[in-house]
Every structure is written in structure tokens, then in C-alpha cells.
């Protein structure tokens, strides 16, 4: 692993301070280190290449070349570009002018969807909303029960129709139920699935056309490696995502997946999961994420 990109770059570029100016070869050397640091943080190779090209363009500019501290200057450029790429400041959920607002969580197996549905429920209730949690996972053993237990702990209503009904019908039933019972947010928990599983991806498309979610959010595990681009691209291509939720950021992963997912979908990362407890959900902060990816 890299012990702080900043330090490494400082060392690389210090050598040239004596020479009085930074040459192209020096910049190339610095860019190699940026590349290694991003790869160590699990940013996807394809994204790293584009990113490094952009940073390089700025690094050969005057702000770096003429700086007394070119190492620091490169780090600053990298950091700024990372923040910019991950999208300004944190985003919010789009609410439907006509309630209920339907939010659908999708993603690979074990990413944290069910847990996040309950976290979102709590988060929204604190904002004065009346969320309904919906158990659309009819496949994983005890998935319905899991959501019911979580809803129970938080005193939030959970809509379920067992496991003998299609998720499309459950989603439709849930929206009707929300309308009838004055629930203004419908949070759909869907089963984990691989982006290459055509049948299950079709199912999500059917739910989408049946209940027209206002937000389709991809839940991504912060520990995800190079595969993050394949997953995000594929879910986005098939469903049209509105945002991303990054989970398990309470771990020690650098979380380069954040950059990969944002880069290939353009979708904002809206929330960060910071633990297993229901209150461990935060707004996503691109600046913090940039520091984390860089190990600063």
C-alpha cells in the first residue's frame, strides 16, 4: 500500500527542486505515482487512466511548474480533481410533488440494501416523513423477516406479501397501501442480483415500469474492487439510476469504487453507510472521500 501519496510525490518532485524547474519526465514520474495510489485505492483502471490524463494536463501547467513546492501542488490538483469528479457537495432525494415518493434500492448480493432501506426509513422519519418499508426480496432465505425485524426495531411499518407473490405485485400493492394509509415515502428493498443475470434484471425493469420510482439507487459496497465499473455501468444502462449509496465506509477500505461508480454513471453518491446500526447513515461528502482515497 502507499503511505500517503502526498509524501511520495513530495520526494519525487523534491529531487528536481535543485534543478530549478520541473521537466516533462518529472511530471511523468509523478503521474506514475498518482496512478499507483489510485489503483491501490481500487479505482478502476479505466477511470484511473482518464483521471491521470486530466491531472497531467493541469500538472504541466504553470501552477505546478512554477511552484516552489511542486509535490504539494500536484497533490492539490489531484485532490481538487477528485472532489470535482465525485460531484460538488452532497445531494438529496428528489421528492415527488404528489406523494408517495417511491425509492427503489438495487444492487449486488450482500451490498447492504436491506439494512440501508431501514436506515433510510429512520433518516426520513427524522425529517418528518412517513416512510413505508417494502419487502420485495422473495428469494433470499429470511429476507422478508430481516426487514420485518428491522422495521419492528425502529417502529416503522413494513409491507410484505410473503414470498409467493411476484416482486412486481408486491411493489404495486405497497404503493396502493401507502396511498390508502397516508405514507409519503415507499422504500423498496429488492433482492441482490448480478448485473449479468438477465432474468432478474428484467424483473427490476418490470418493477420500474409498474411503479415508476422517483429514485432508483444503486447500493455499492465500499470494498468493491475493479468490478465496480462493470456493475455500475450495467445497472445504469439497464435501469437508469438516479443515485448511489456507498456502504461499509466504517471499514478501512480506501473506497476507490466511489470514484469509479461516479465516473461511469455520472450519478451522484447520495448517502454513505457508516455501520450496521440503523442510525449509521450519513450524507456523502466528496471532499472527505477524496482525502480517504488519497490516504490523507
Amino acid at each position, binding site marked *: 500500500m502507499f503511505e500517503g501519496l502526498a509524501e511520495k510525490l513530495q520526494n519525487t518532485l523534491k529531487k528536481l527542486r535543485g534543478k530549478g524547474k520541473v521537466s516533462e519526465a518529472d511530471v511523468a514520474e509523478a503521474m506514475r505515482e498518482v496512478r499507483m495510489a489510485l489503483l491501490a485505492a481500487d479505482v478502476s483502471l479505466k477511470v484511473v487512466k482518464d483521471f491521470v490524463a486530466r491531472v497531467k494536463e493541469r500538472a504541466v501547467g504553470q501552477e505546478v511548474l512554477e511552484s516552489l513546492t511542486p509535490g504539494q501542488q500536484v497533490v492539490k490538483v489531484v485532490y481538487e480533481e477528485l472532489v470535482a469528479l465525485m460531484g460538488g457537495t452532497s445531494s438529496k432525494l428528489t421528492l415527488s410533488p404528489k406523494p408517495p415518493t417511491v425509492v427503489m434500492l438495487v444492487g449486488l448480493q450482500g451490498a447492504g440494501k436491506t439494512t440501508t432501506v431501514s436506515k433510510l426509513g429512520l433518516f426520513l422519519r427524522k425529517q418528518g416523513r412517513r416512510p413505508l418499508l417494502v419487502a420485495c426480496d422473495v428469494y433470499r432465505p429470511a*429476507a422478508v423477516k*430481516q426487514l420485518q425485524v428491522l422495521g419492528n426495531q425502529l417502529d416503522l411499518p413494513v409491507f410484505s406479501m410473503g414470498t409467493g407473490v411476484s416482486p412486481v405485485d408486491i411493489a404495486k400493492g405497497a404503493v396502493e397501501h401507502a396511498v390508502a394509509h397516508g405514507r409519503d415515502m415507499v422504500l423498496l428493498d429488492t433482492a441482490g442480483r448480478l448485473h449479468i443475470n438477465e432474468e432478474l434484471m428484467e424483473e427490476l425493469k418490470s418493477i420500474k415500469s409498474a411503479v415508476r420510482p422517483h429514485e432508483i439507487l444503486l447500493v455499492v459496497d465500499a470494498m468493491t474492487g475493479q468490478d465496480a465499473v462493470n456493475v455500475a455501468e450495467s445497472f445504469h444502462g439497464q435501469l437508469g439510476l438516479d443515485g448511489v449509496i456507498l456502504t461499509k465506509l466504517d471499514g478501512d477500505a480506501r473506497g476507490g469504487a466511489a470514484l469509479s461508480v461516479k465516473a461511469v454513471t455520472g450519478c451522484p453518491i447520495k448517502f454513505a453507510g457508516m455501520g450496521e446500526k440503523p442510525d449509521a447513515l450519513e450524507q456523502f461528502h466528496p471532499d472527505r472521500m477524496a482525502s480517504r482515497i488519497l490516504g490523507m
Partner: protein
Amino acid sequence: TGRPKIDEELFEELEEALISADVGADTSLDLVERLRQTVKAQKIGDPARIKDLLQEEVARILGEQAQPVAFDHQPTVVLIVGVNGVGKTTTIAKLAHRWKQEGRKVLLAAGDTFRAAAIDQLEIWGQRVGVEVIRHQEGSDPSAVAFDAVQAAVSRGVDVLIIDTAGRLHNKSHLMNELSKINRVLDRALPGAPHETLLVLDATTGQNAVSQARLFSEAVGLTGLVLTKLDGTAKGGVILAIAAEMQAPVKFIGIGEKMDDLRDFDPPEFARALFG
């Protein structure tokens, strides 16, 4: 690759293929550098041989063959550990199914007393597979479950006891201490237990898996790894970096969500798939 000769571009392509398979930049660079030297030393000119050489090297690093679980204790106690959501509980169902089919008497222990409905999940699997599950209530002490399960396994003359644990992130010391305690309690209940401690890794995981392997190994000692979710598009190349650092071999892979979606780890096949 249908190239006329071995050139720098070919080496770069290989390096990128390795990085894209989560082998990690450092390990990928090392591997390709060694390949360059081999090519030079052995005066290899045929580009068609390059991939084979690299695959052989990868398989060599991972250990030439799969290392099965030895059932030389009665009962053999298997502890399953790993971070959240990697596939521990499902893997237990798969192992139980396989070992039952081999004619062994299997018992499961619902050691995840923390996550919502984790016990129910294992119970449903137990029913499907047709094996019994020792359980306590949600929120109870997992060490106590482990202790009871060992006693039950001994008194029922079970061949293999598989213990589920709650997912936990390796950087959380209190949770890792809880795991060490389970380990100690098992040894007290049956000296020498657990006989196998398997760390479950999700193939979708990137370089963080190295940190997972390191810290779980420190906390409980590992006898092997299970690599799940290889039915997706992730390759799980990070196990190469792990293999360079520790002894624990990959024993099984998971290739789906059903109980028969478990395979022995096959290093040459894994090496081929890394570039596929």
C-alpha cells in the same frame, strides 16, 4: 493474442489484465517483470507461450492443487468468519449440503446472534439441506452458542460442526475480540477446536481483502479461504496478493446462491479465468 512478436505492448496488456482482475498494481507489476526476465533468460520468442507462462506462475503461487478439509477429528469443528455480506451463511449451507452428501453427519450452529433474522436464515438453510441447527435467541452471547453446539455435536456423535458468525469489519477491535473469545471457548469445549477456520472473501472485493485476511488471521488464525461470488464478472485476483503473504490456501469457491453452487478451488482453472 495473435501477435507476431513479444513486445512491450504485450507485457503492458498483460499487466492491465491483471490489474483489472484485482490482482493489485504492485503484484501485477512484479508478476509481469518476472515474466519479462523469464522470456529473456529462456530466449522465448513465441508470443503464444506468454499467457501460458503467466498462468502457470499464477497457479504455482496459489498452490498446485486444492487442499481439502481433513476430517481427522470427531467432531471436526469448522468456524466460518468474514466481513459483512460476503456469503458466510450461504457458504455454510453449501458446505453442509456437500458434506452431508458425502455421508457425514453435519450440525450447524447459529453463531450470528446479532444481524436481523440471521438465525432464521440459517434455520431455513438447515431445513433445506436437512441438517439440524443449534440456536439461541437473537442478541445472546455467540460464545455460548458455540459452546453448546460443541457439546451437542459430541453427544450426538456428529462428524462435522459448522459454526456461523456475524459479519464484522476487521478494523473493529471489539468485534474481533469477540471472535477471539469464540475461538477460545471452542478450544475449552473441545481441545484443539476449531480444526478449520475459514475466512470467506467476496470476489467482488478489491485490495481491502488483503487487510481482511491479515487481521482475521491475527485474531483467530486461518486454515483456509473461501472465495464467493465468482459467478459474476469479478475475478478475485486479490487472493494472489494474499497468497504471497500467508499460508492459508483457498479451499472452496462459491459460484451462485444455491446449495450446490460450491466447488473445490482449482488453481489452474482460476488462473485461466483471470484472463478470460
